[in-house]
């Protein structure tokens, strides 16, 4: 059970949050222009790596804001949190 530092509310228990999977997968601006394969790439393909991963989390039982988390999946250490639209504070 982690502690996540919500960029709006501060440190809270993980139970207040829900995970939204990999971050920085922008929804294509013109989906109709994409081939089946390109659309499938957006829709289904996720990295799920062991190590540093960029993730989306939602403070679902708090401020209800979505934000990004940089987490090491091998030890759950959270290296950074940052708001939607912001650049990752560590190298991606």
């Amino acid at each position, binding site marked *: 059970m982690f502690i996540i530092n919500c960029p709006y509310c501060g440190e809270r228990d993980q139970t207040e949050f829900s995970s939204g999977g990999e971050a920085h997968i922008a929804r294509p601006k013109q989906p109709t222009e994409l081939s089946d394969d390109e659309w499938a790439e957006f829709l289904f393909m996720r990295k799920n790596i062991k190590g540093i991963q960029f993730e989306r989390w939602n403070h679902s039982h708090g*401020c209800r804001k979505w934000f990004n988390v940089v987490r090491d999946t091998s030890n759950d250490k959270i290296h950074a949190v940052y708001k939607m639209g912001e650049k990752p504070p560590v190298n991606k």
Partner: protein
Amino acid sequence: MLNFETTLQDSKSYGDLTLSEVEPILKINLRSNKREFSTKIGKLLSIIPPIEANTSSSNEDYSVLWLSPDEWLIYSNNKISYEQQNLLEENLFNNISNINQGSVTNVTDHWVMINLKGYKIYDLLSKSSPYDFKNFKMKKGSVTQTLLNHTDVILHNIYDNNLNLFVRRSFSEDLWLWINDSARFL
């Protein structure tokens, strides 16, 4: 007028601890990310919605709780008539929603407000809330949204060992039962 019927209509004491449903007072949810918004509310209610997270601002009539960077909950500190409630809601709606400065939504019956009093209230809350109340209980006016017995709640510290708890109406009976059960074993 129609009869109204609140959910709990109850008040209980366990030693020093007292729990009671506060008769429905006006509650309005505000949302906005507009610059003008704060001053507008200031003019309308003589109170500025707090910008600092987990805080509230209050005057004699109203409290405004920070819920998120673009969301607040206003509640009236005293009972006011249905007509007055309507006037206030309309006034806010006309001066915020209707001129695209944000949204004003009446949530009076969405939330049930329960008052908890006594030096053991934080022991009670800690039975099922993962929130660390250390700073919250020291600072009058603190606000937090968290989970209590797996149910969403908003907590507002009004005095030392005295807080208002907001729970969604449909969950209120369930949470009330849990609170009463837990209050027996502090």
